[in-house]
């Protein structure tokens, strides 16, 4: 049990290290970095590699933004398996990442509750 926390910590941390390398070494902006990571998540799932990573690392693989690309591809592939090419489009929206809906929901709630605090 403790092992799974450790694994989540290490795997999640390593994905963030890749992000930091893209920031500092490749000099990408945060936006470019996140897009790149999402795309790599989607591609990894295309090769069937992301699900095993989730099995292995749990939250270490589902919490980083890469999982977002994975779940979109995964949804599309699941539907494609059942309905062929049309499923590619419908599946993607059927399994909309809960991250998006949560972010929209909480973003709106936050705009009702909070104001930006300004500088430290």
């Amino acid at each position, binding site marked *: *049990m*403790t*092992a*799974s*926390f450790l*694994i989540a910590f290490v795997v999640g941390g390593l994905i963030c290290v890749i992000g930091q390398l893209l920031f500092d070494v490749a000099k990408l902006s945060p936006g470019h970095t996140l897009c790149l990571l999402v795309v790599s998540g989607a591609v990894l799932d295309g090769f069937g590699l992301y*699900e*095993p*990573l989730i*099995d*292995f690392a749990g939250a270490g693989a589902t919490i980083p933004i890469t999982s977002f690309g994975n*779940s979109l591809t*995964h*949804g599309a592939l*699941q539907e494609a398996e059942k309905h062929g090419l049309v499923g590619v489009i419908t599946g993607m929206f059927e*399994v909309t990442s809960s991250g998006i809906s949560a972010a929209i929901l909480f973003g709106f709630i936050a705009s009702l509750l909070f104001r930006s605090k300004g500088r430290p």
Partner: protein
Amino acid sequence: MKRMIAIAGASLLLAGCGAGTGEIRVSGGEPEENQKVEEVLKEEDGRIVSAVAVFVEEDLLVGVQVKPLSRFSKTKIEEELTKEMEKAFPEETVTLSADLKIFWETDKLDELEEEEKLHKKVETIKSLSKEET
């Protein structure tokens, strides 16, 4: 921050009370059936940390925990074991999962006395194991 650590800590403690490691527990069946389940599971011994198996009427429910590094091939292990179990028990409906939740729930089956609750629980476990994403 403090609250988050508290939540994480609490769930860590709660999560700590499943079946012990290195243990294979089988119940609910005839002694030789139980023996057979253990044998099948032990063939996989390199990768399985602990397991619980329960016979309930027509059903055989198995929850296994695989070693951390073997989790990469969790789905494969599940498939292989299910096949072997089905071969060993052709009359039973085998529900086998390496999911921690299924493991916990199967573990709890033993404590249930009432027929109805038991039946409900079995159905829940079976449906949980089929769910995807």
